């Protein structure tokens, strides 16, 4: 199983499509951050006051990244029959499943966090860090985001092993992105989006949106200038629930995916 994992990591590093997607997203995020000057009009905001305004949107789009990685690594092996050859070569189905699932579930959340964090590091270098939110609180959010992303990756793994189609994962990630953005921009009045927002424990959407939102109070003066006060501390209960729910659901998706693949007809 270890050599399959090693090969998957190598494939991840070499997959042009994965790199292209990540670079494209990084570029888009950077352009977004530098072109939009935030609430202060022409004056560029410091990173810590700008991040709460933009992070939910950027994270919403970035869930496309793990989908692409999983589709490229696991899905391609179904479509070019690599897995079939592997199984006929004597590999166990468990090794084939976890040999793929584990590498992508390590790489996908880390990469996603990286491509959402790097634009802010670059932005901070250009515009300054500021002190609207302590950097430690931002780091805490990014660290916690790994857990829902792990859960989301596990779901995509389940999906790819059930459908064996790259397109299914990509389409579902587009759905997840749309719903997440729908929740973020407040247009999520549609019944479907409300339902998914409340009960997306299985897919991590609600946790991701909660983690990227910073409770705040907005004051404004008579010139309509806004002043934000942020309350970045997360309740302990939310942290514990996010971690437990994410690990639990990730395990469930993996178990379901492994069991399905274990008995599935490979044609």
């Amino acid at each position, binding site marked *: 199983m270890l050599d399959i994992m090693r090969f998957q990591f190598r494939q991840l590093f070499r997959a042009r499509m994965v790199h292209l997607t990540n670079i494209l997203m990084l570029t888009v995020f950077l352009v977004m951050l530098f072109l939009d000057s935030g609430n202060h009009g022409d004056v560029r905001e410091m990173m810590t006051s700008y991040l709460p305004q933009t992070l939910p949107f950027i994270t919403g789009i970035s869930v496309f990244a793990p989908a692409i990685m999983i589709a490229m690594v696991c899905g391609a092996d179904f479509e070019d029959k690599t897995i079939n050859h592997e199984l006929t070569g004597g590999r166990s189905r468990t090794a084939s499943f976890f040999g793929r699932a584990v590498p992508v579930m390590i790489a996908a959340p880390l990469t996603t966090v990286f491509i959402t964090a790097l634009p802010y590091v670059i932005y901070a270098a250009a515009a300054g860090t500021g002190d609207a939110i302590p950097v430690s609180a931002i780091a805490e959010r990014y660290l916690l985001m790994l857990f829902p992303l792990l859960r989301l990756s596990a779901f995509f793994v389940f999906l790819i092993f059930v459908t064996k189609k790259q397109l299914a994962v990509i389409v579902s990630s587009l759905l997840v992105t749309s719903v997440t953005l729908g929740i973020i921009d407040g247009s999520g009045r549609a019944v479907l989006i409300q339902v998914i927002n409340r009960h997306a424990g299985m897919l991590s959407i609600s946790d991701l949106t909660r983690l990227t939102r910073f409770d705040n109070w907005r*004051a404004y003066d008579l010139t309509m200038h806004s002043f934000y006060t942020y309350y970045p501390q997360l309740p302990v209960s939310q942290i514990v629930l996010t971690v437990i729910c994410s690990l639990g659901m990730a395990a469930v998706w993996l178990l*379901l995916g492994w069991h399905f693949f274990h008995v599935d007809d490979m044609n």
Partner: protein
Amino acid sequence: MQRIDLIALAVCVLGCGVLWKLADLADRIKSTKWKLCWLVLPVCAFAITRYGPELSLLPLYLGTVIAASGFFTEQSGSRKKRALSGAACMLLSIPVCLLNPRYRAKDYLGDFDKLFAAMREHYVLTEHKGIDWDAMYAKYRPQFAEIDRTQDAGRNALVWGAFCGEFHDGHVGYSCFKDDNDAASAAVREALGNDYGLSLMRCTDGSFAAVNTDASLAAFGIRNGTVITKWDGKTPDAVSRSAAAYGLSTFIADTETGDVLLMLDSYPDIDNEIFWSGVLAAGVGGDSVTVTYLDETGTEQTAVLPKIGAYFDRLRSTVDTVNQGVNAGNLQWKKLNDTTACLRIKGMSYDSQSYESAEDDAYDEMKDEIRETILRYQAEGVRDVVIDLRSNQGGSPHMVDGVVSMFAPKGEHYNMSTGLWDAEHHCWATDTSGRYIPNGDITFQGEQLLGDGRIIVLVNSETVSAGDDMVKIMEGMENVRIIGFMQPNGSCQAVNFQTADWGTLSFSSCVSLEKDGSIFIDSGIDRQSTDGDGVEIVPFDEAAIRSLFDEHKDYLMEQALQMLAGSTGAVSNPVLD
């Protein structure tokens, strides 16, 4: 049990039946894809709901997991047993939900804690109004704890109304979410009491008069304007203070449309509270009340009036009649006679784009429209303008500047000053004496389009916020007279909202200041707001009552036209108490 939970339960139990049948089919037609059907139930259980997961529905969730475990087996018999066990487990939700007093309980206490904490931190009139937050917390938290225990949504609305009323601030208000609207409306209606066939209004001379009287009272000789001296043996103002709805700041919304049907205010300005002091008294009493009144000869008589319904509708129509305004849309004009036109301003907003702007040219389009209309009217011979600000709900001070600039004498005029934000402490900056520090003035240029034409502004106690602002600016202008039965509301800080699970609290959180940093307009501990000193109070007397309630006329507008014609009955700032 809530209907939506019953639907979820029914769907899942039926789903177990489907899985039972599917077990045989999956056994005959072999495919791993069948397995996916066994995952549908948990999705249904969590998706069919309004308020998210509920602890009392744990058997339902466990049941779906048991049924879904058929995913891991291929044996038809085993799958059937799991579907059956799952359904049985799900049904246990019914007794659990019915027996659990906290089933779908609303966290009213948590809401209070959240909203109270936000208001305590951000309310900008704490010192000005002498708010003792610890005392407020000690007074209201036990009441919300009790509400949380009893899950009484109606009482929740009433206690929030009483809490908001303590501030005497037109910007402090609580609105419950739609789910609680019915209960809240019923509670407020009940608090308003019974209908005995009349409303009471305090007249300018201090007496109390019957208004909006029912035809059945004619037998006693009680008609609109009859002086009521005692209500169940007590003076009407004393009875009013004993009313369950006294001091509440709340409203009743139409449960279908959400439109506000009736506002009850704890007025910032004490003069307005005195003006309305009789109106709640007419709902106080049991199955009947003993009313003492003066007959047409001035002799005191007594009548026992039976309850004929709930007071809400009569109170509402009384308030509407007294507060009426010109029936026209916001910023619409109406020609009153050959020389006078009326501009109706219901709220200080023109469009969403200008509303969010403080730019000098934000209201240019609106100003162009007003300018064009005035010039057209002037060409038709119109000299004077009545601006109807009655029940103006406020909005942008910049729109106020835009409107007033059309009528103000040429030159620069001061409106108000904005505050300085202390970015380090995340609050409005104050000096060592605790006074807010101004950070720039809001000014505008007057155009005096009317030339030497006269302006009369009509106000009432619902003329609030930016409406107050407009009154404050215009009462200092020479060609302007401001009239009303009462003062404007007296609340002019900018407002913010804090939302909790079951309602939203609004309160003053952004400062509007005078040049010296003192609070702009809002009343302090003395409950005297600083606008309205120039309002000429139109006597609320028998003539006004007959005009409003018998002849159904707009008495205040008639007074305005008489003033412009040269004869007036207005009294300048009479002492009401």
